């Protein structure tokens, strides 16, 4: 049947393209052999493959370890570039484990947990937010976005990962910072002196059971003391090598009461005094005591054990002021240019306020110390958890018109406030008032989260007016306190304000704010207002 059909085709039909399908209507011997056709097609396929690979290779990432350059494969997923995790793990000598939708990458300083389709990477108790979700293509084939290399990977490496150019990174050994710790035991307190070989920024943070001393920029090589601190006040002194650069952890002893830190004239050292409960006074002293002459080291602790003092949770946190540098991470805030980002200014100003507060009876607690973004509710939660004496959100202003200038302090405005003030007719009708039912305003034992600020509105206004007045003096302006419904302030169960310390969209304000000296003036003004308010 088939051969008959073939014959009919040969005899009757001579279409011009029939030869394409293997039918030669005139000669029996093929003019162009089948082998040649196969070779030609193979060459075309080969060239096509090479071309595709070449296009793909252009997006790959170069990773330099010493003088050796390695290539990390890239792959496009929904228009976004991803880099193969397995290549990174092999090049950087890390360990990789996988379980269904989760993967773990372990390095010398900790491990990262990745979850498929989530833009979050877990490191210890924190989550690092990436700008793209992690992608698990198939089993043991995971892909990560480029900012994984910038934000997450350095946390577990024993070397620095330096970005040289777009899609080119270099692994550089950390420069070292030798930190020597000296212990001096006094009858009522323990002094810890941290002496470093570099001039790295030192940060002291208090937690419920411990105090953490962290050093930035250099890898810390610790030298722990031979002298043991008084175990009643200091439960232990350990070096935590899993921290990014290395950190010291001071465990609070059974009779720990509070601590003070001193920035000595020499920037290479930090002095921390940890106190036992005073015999009479039960409050934090108003003026920081000057460092005393130490008794000969090691001084034995007095045999008399102080009478036990009931320690309440609130007291453990001390006189904390929550300082919340606005924005962070991918949330730049106001950014009139790529260099002028509100998130950077707010962190710098908040750090200066925190430094200034150290010389007062109060201590600043920063909601973020790095360039990371926090949800509004997370920021408020930190203030509530630490039972802060007050909450100061640090922001800079941005306005559609460049002439808007000067500092503005904002406080929370709930519905019904105007009516309480007797403004029944016009109250809340200016378009700026959100509405809540009267039932929500009624005092209750359990306060809804967003109503935390309700009972502190008057105090917040007082605090806001003091800060506004101090900042007006710095700027020479006469701006007024402003009340608006703000997501960050509504849940804070403490006097709370948001300070816009000048407008980045105003060139005069921006020029002033760019200088450290002016940032310091703002910090001093805010600290002065906080002291006036809390005292």
């Amino acid at each position, binding site marked *: 049947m088939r051969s008959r059909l073939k014959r009919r085709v040969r005899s009757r039909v001579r279409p011009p393209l029939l030869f394409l399908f293997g039918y030669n209507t005139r000669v029996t011997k093929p003019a*162009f052999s089948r082998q040649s056709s196969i070779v030609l097609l193979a060459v075309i396929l080969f060239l096509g493959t090479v071309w595709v690979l070449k296009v793909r290779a252009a997006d790959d990432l170069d990773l330099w370890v010493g003088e050796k350059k390695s290539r990390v494969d890239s792959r496009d997923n929904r228009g976004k570039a991803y880099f193969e995790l397995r290549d990174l793990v092999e090049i950087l000598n890390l360990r990789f484990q996988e379980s269904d939708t989760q993967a773990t990458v372990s390095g010398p300083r900790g491990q990262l947990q990745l979850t498929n389709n989530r833009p979050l990477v877990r490191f210890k108790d924190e989550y690092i937010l990436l700008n793209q979700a992690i992608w698990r293509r198939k089993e043991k084939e995971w892909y990560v976005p480029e900012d994984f290399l910038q934000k997450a990977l350095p946390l577990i490496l024993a070397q620095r990962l330096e970005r040289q150019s777009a899609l080119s990174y270099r692994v550089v050994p950390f420069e070292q910072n030798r930190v020597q710790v000296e212990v001096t035991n006094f009858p009522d307190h323990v002094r810890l002196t941290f002496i470093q070989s570099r001039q790295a920024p030192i940060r002291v943070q208090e937690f419920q059971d411990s105090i953490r001393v962290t050093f930035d920029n250099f890898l810390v090589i610790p030298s722990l003391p031979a002298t043991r601190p008084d175990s009643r006040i200091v439960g232990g002194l350990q070096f935590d090598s899993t921290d990014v650069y290395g950190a010291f952890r001071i465990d609070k002893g059974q009779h720990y009461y509070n601590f003070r830190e001193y920035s000595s004239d020499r920037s290479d050292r930090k002095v921390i005094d940890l106190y036992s409960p005073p015999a009479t006074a039960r409050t934090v002293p108003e003026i920081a005591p000057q460092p005393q002459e130490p008794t000969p080291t090691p001084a034995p602790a007095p045999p008399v054990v102080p009478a036990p003092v009931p320690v309440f949770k609130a007291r453990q946190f001390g006189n904390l002021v929550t300082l919340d540098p606005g924005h962070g991470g991918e949330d730049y*805030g106001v950014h009139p240019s790529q260099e002028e980002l509100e998130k950077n200014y707010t962190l710098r100003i908040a750090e200066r306020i925190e430094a200034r507060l150290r010389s007062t009876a109060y201590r600043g607690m920063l909601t973020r110390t790095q360039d990371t973004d926090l949800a509004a509710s997370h920021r408020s939660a930190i203030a509530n958890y630490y039972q802060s004496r007050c909450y100061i959100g640090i922001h800079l202003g941005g306005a559609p018109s460049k002439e808007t200038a000067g500092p*503005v302090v904002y406080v929370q405005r709930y519905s019904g406030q105007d009516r309480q003030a007797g403004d029944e007719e016009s109250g809340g009708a200016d378009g700026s008032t959100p509405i809540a039912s009267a039932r929500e305003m009624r005092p209750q034992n359990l306060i809804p989260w967003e109503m935390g600020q309700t009972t502190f509105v008057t105090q917040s206004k007082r605090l806001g007016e003091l800060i506004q007045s101090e900042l007006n003096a710095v700027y020479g302006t006469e701006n007024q306190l402003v009340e608006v419904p703000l997501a960050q302030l509504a849940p804070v169960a403490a006097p709370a304000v948001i300070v816009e310390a000048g407008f980045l*969209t105003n060139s005069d304000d921006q020029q002033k704010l760019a200088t450290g000296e002016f940032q310091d003036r703002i910090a001093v003004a805010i600290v002065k207002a906080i002291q006036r308010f809390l005292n």
Partner: protein
Amino acid sequence: MRKHRSLYIALILLITAGAVGYYLYTAEKRRQTELRDSARQSLDAEASALAKGSGPTLAVKLYLYNPGHVDPKAEFLNVAERKIFPTDDKILKARQIVNEVLKSRPLFSDQAVLRQIYLLEDGTAVVDLSEQAAKGLTGGITSEMAAIMSVTRSLRANIPEIHRVQFLIEGHQTETFGGHVSIQQPFM
């Protein structure tokens, strides 16, 4: 011709693949553009339908940001008059008003788009704005308040049935308008 049979096959296949690829690429590009412009075009379609009756003859009062001011209680908004197409449909009127407000520069960016307006029986106007309407602001509390108040007051001043305005961003009830001001409750 028979001599180069395979070569011709390859060429024809390549040309066909290229043509199909180009067609798919342009079709996808066209579709993306249409999707992007659809929100804006939907209003233009309404406006052109209204224009068939008469021109923009209905005067409305808009409350627009007064440059240099930061306190919502004090001279924060200026009154400006604009003409819109007359209509008895409250939603069409509200849409035109919000779109006139969104044209105010430099408060809103060119990408600020009104997605939809719903009018509830209790007098709440639900204004659904595009993400760029909030993200395109210069940032800061002043900008957010200016955006919220100019929309709210302009709607309330021109449509008596509207008592309060609830904002949505990209169809969702979000915590804040652009990072600061809470929009979980309606504004009045």
